[in-house]
């Protein structure tokens, strides 16, 4: 499947980050599966009308994270996930994501219990697409 990517210049999040985030989301939701081929750097750059180096940077970050892989003659494809971040880096990302989450729900009239329920449901869906560790 071709990922649908949209960028917003002039936001406080850099363009390469926006691209990486969207592909990451597609992978986590199972919209992109192992073996799916991403558009080439050139193609995506011309489609989004941005500098190809920006796309290259987004792809490089996803390669570093172990989500995609450069395949000779084929471009970049989604690979079976293998954790490449150090524990420390994972902790930092988790912290950041949680802080972001908390600030967004802080002014909503839900009880913690309700929030946890929805969170659990979302995480369970991740589990189904094989993106979280099963706790034994």
């Amino acid at each position, binding site marked *: 499947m071709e990922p649908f990517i949209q960028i917003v*210049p002039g936001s406080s999040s*850099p363009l390469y980050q926006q691209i990486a985030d969207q592909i990451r989301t597609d992978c986590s939701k199972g919209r992109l599966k192992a073996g799916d081929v991403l558009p080439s750097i050139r193609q995506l750059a011309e489609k989004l*009308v941005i*500098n190809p180096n920006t796309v290259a940077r987004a792809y490089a970050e996803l390669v570093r994270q172990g989500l995609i892989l450069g395949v000779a003659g084929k471009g970049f494809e989604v690979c079976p996930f293998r954790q490449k971040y150090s524990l420390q880096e994972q902790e930092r990302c988790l912290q950041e994501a949680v802080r972001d989450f908390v600030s967004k729900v802080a002014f909503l009239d839900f009880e913690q219990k309700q929030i946890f329920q929805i969170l659990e449901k979302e995480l369970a869906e991740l589990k189904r697409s094989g993106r979280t560790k099963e706790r034994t």
Partner: protein
Amino acid sequence: MNEPVIETRELTKFYGDIPVVNMLNIQIPRGMIYGFLGRNGAGKTTTIRMLMGLVEPTRGEAKILGQDRGEWTPELRARVGYLAEGHHVYGWMTVRECGLFQAAFYQHWNADIFHAVIKHFGLNEKAKAGGLSRGQRAGLCLALTLAPEPELLVLDDPALGLDPVARRSLLESMIYVTRKQDRSILFSSHLLSDVERVADRIGVMDRGVLRADCTMEEFRRHIHHFVLEFAGVPPAPPQDFEGCLLASFRTEEEMSLTLVNPTERDRETMARLKPRVCEERDLDLEEAFIRYVGDRGEKSFLLHEMGEKK
């Protein structure tokens, strides 16, 4: 082939006793898209005109494609495409005639590119150039600049006066040009979202001086914005920061400070003001730019101070 396509050393231009470009040092490597930013009158156009040999520098050196000023041959110039500010065309010629006229000056002219760009901007070849809209004229100028397939493109505010659709076509053309790896572009612009889209690196001119020459990421990373909330009227902003205080802004209960390269001690200085909350916020490129080249000093919306001035 890895020499820079543009290189200046202490390039300087005085008009009277005002340095409009002051000791400019830039290096643009081959293959790069370089966005040249700055307010009106910052010296961007004068720099570009010196690079194109249209303005004699007061002192300093400028090299284009490895050649010193004064050694530029017509062959070398043919390898550089220059789009002057304002999209000037001969109004009495048709679009097609403009192409034929321009082609006569070049040994190498790719008519396919000319036609492709004309089509991309939705132009009719039989139309008189004088009757074209601003965006169409920009398209024509761009077609004339791109048809000789220059290695180096120098675009002086190409997006000036263009509507969003024409601007997008312009950006698409710029990205298209870099399909060939060795093509380089220097362009000036006021549209930061366009610059963010296409530039590898930016140079920020301010009153004749190049004050930043880095990637957009680095530029944003060095500029920090703090918002301090107070229970009452905020105190006067401290003046003893180690980093450079670009701007401060006060309202009834809030003070915001923008600093370049703040240090740990600066954060302590802010904490000593005893704000209720001190938060660091990300700035987008436009905000960072405005604070960087905007007027320095304090601005405030303190109602009581405004009242006192009467």
